[in-house]
């Protein structure tokens, strides 16, 4: 178990710069999730921590030791790959034992470690099988077992659940989290799925175009997004955004591009006439009584059972609202929705930063 420090790390593939100076410091026993859209550099960063990619500039240290020039095998890390990377010609047992065999560990120790890992992951009945004979979830477990037997300082996960079906993904998500709570090994987990990030992470690092947009606990990112990117990326369904102009005459409000008056909280910063982006989460839109709130024209209603997603046009923008109570809306119906003022976000239109 160890800390991981990433300081001013840059990476370019030929002329293409993919990571432009990233600083992240991960404490011992922490579960950190790197999340971002594809191409944001999160997998590259993980592979640099693993030693599978060279670091062009900056420094990565694991447990206080700078590892820039340390070979992957000497970094004392284990990685779970997206496609599991199980050796197809080895049984589950041999797959898990491989690293210890290479280290010339004693047979009894190998056996003990492998069986222990198999116990934790429920793989005991499958030790003699080959990867091809396993289901996706079982292969995923073998990949984790292979990491566990080595008892590394840091676990690296590279989108480990993206090849699984939705139901299994939810199950494995919980298992990985439980595993981390049990082993307490520092873990760095890469995903493009913000739900995975929210549910698993102690802290989330949101990356975009090779830079870190924001680092924080899941709820911190949800409640206090630093900019429009984080606000739009974290939370599902995504936050609704309306471009407009901040007005401080007659209360504080935002005039949307089509003239719609969007109510803003009194505590908000920014000056009168400033171009802003008004953001409100779907779950923070409630049915308005009478003529309060803003007008919305219902387009599509999607009941999920627990919630109902209502897609409508507000101020000319396609918007989403989520209701936990049931409503009987029809497409084309005119309704009025009231944003919860205490959780409305305003961003500067030019910089995207939170006001």
């Amino acid at each position, binding site marked *: 178990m160890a800390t991981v420090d990433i300081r001013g790390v840059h990476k370019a593939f030929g002329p293409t710069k993919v990571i432009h100076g990233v600083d992240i410091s991960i404490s011992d026993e922490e579960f950190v999730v790197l999340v971002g859209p594809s191409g944001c550099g999160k997998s590259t960063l993980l592979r640099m921590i693993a030693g599978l990619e060279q670091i062009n500039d900056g420094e990565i240290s694991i447990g206080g030791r700078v590892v820039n020039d340390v070979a992957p095998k000497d970094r004392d890390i284990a990685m779970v790959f997206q496609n599991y990377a199980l050796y197809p010609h080895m049984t589950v047992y041999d797959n898990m034992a491989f*690293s210890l065999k290479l280290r010339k560990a004693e047979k009894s120790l190998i056996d003990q470690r492998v069986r222990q890992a198999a116990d934790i992951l429920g793989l005991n009945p499958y030790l003699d099988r080959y990867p091809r004979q396993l289901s996706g979830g079982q292969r995923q477990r073998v990949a984790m077992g292979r990491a566990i037997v080595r008892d590394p300082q840091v676990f690296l996960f590279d989108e480990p659940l993206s090849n699984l079906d939705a139901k299994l993904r939810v199950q494995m998500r919980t298992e990985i989290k439980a595993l981390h709570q049990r082993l307490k090994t520092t873990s760095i987990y890469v995903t493009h799925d913000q739900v995975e990030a929210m549910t698993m992470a102690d802290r989330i690092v949101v990356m975009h175009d090779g830079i870190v947009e924001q680092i924080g606990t899941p709820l911190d990112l949800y409640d206090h997004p630093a900019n429009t990117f984080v606000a739009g990326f974290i939370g599902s369904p995504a936050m609704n955004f309306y471009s407009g102009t901040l007005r401080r005459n007659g209360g504080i409000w935002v005039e949307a591009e089509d003239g719609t008056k969007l109510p803003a909280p009194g505590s908000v910063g920014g000056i009168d006439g400033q171009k802003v982006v008004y953001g409100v989460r779907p779950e923070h839109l409630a049915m308005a009584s009478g003529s309060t709130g803003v007008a919305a024209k219902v387009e599509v209603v999607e009941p999920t059972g627990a919630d109902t997603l209502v897609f409508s046009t507000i101020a000319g923008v396609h918007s989403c609202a989520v209701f936990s109570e049931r409503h009987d809306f029809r497409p084309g119906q005119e309704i009025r929705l009231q944003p919860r003022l205490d959780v409305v976000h305003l961003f500067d239109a030019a910089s995207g930063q939170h006001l």
Partner: protein
Amino acid sequence: MATAAIGRTADLARKPLVEILDNKTVLSILCMLPAAILLLTFLTYPLGLGIWLGFTDTKIGRDGVFVGIDNYLSLFDDSVFLLSVFNTILYTTIATTLKFGLGLYLALLLNNHLPFKALLRAIILLPWIVPTVLSAIAFWWIYDAQFSILSYMLQKMGLIDQYIDFLGKPANARASLIAANVWRGIPFVAICLLAGLQTISPSLYEAAALDGATPWQRFRHVTMPMLMPILSIVLTFSVLFTFTDFQLIYAITRGGPVNSTHLMATLAFQRAIPGGQLGEGAAIATAMIPFLVAATLSSYFGLQRRKWQQGETDD
């Protein structure tokens, strides 16, 4: 009315045919038939005829009579035939070993990220796409007793005093032919193995590197086992091609000097066509069959799907 009735009768008549064609067995036989006819005509018939001729004393221009295994009995006392068997086995063993060693090495090199990779691969294929006879003639010149460029270069480098008689001495001639065959055969092996190498997922190597495997261990524990299936196929083909090689030998040495480089294939031809002894030549050619069957069988067992390649099960 009348047309409707005719239509119905036609429907009835057509229905059984459609049903017959829907039958999987019938359809598969029908689909295989064209290929089967071609194979029977152009492979099985000549093969059968060849085997039959081996049991006769047919000569060119004279129908033979059945002589049983007389041809084979006489071959056992024929030192040239026995030498050709020895040559064939030697030629196949050494050439195949070299082709695989060098071919695998080349494939591993080409599998790396090299500049002009596509061009390099195309160049590698050249020896294979040049017509055999053409490259044989080139080798003939390279090995020429008076004009050999090899001897010339070696002499200029001060490594030899006098020109090497590549094709004039039995041992030299055998080695020279093996070298030519290896030169021609490497591209096939290298390209096939390269294709095999490219099917190995890079993440396996990364996983192995993280697991602590050295480059040699990665080769030994990842590359080799993963390459085995394609390796054994290519090996079989290579053994068959080398064992039955004819063109290169015939164009460079014609089995000489003094029959010392004859392979079974060249000897069979020599005896049958220029020599006119069709029966004896056919017997020599037929004598290759057991060797080829053995090679094919060993590869058949080697090729059987390894346990780890077997299909997925749901339990």
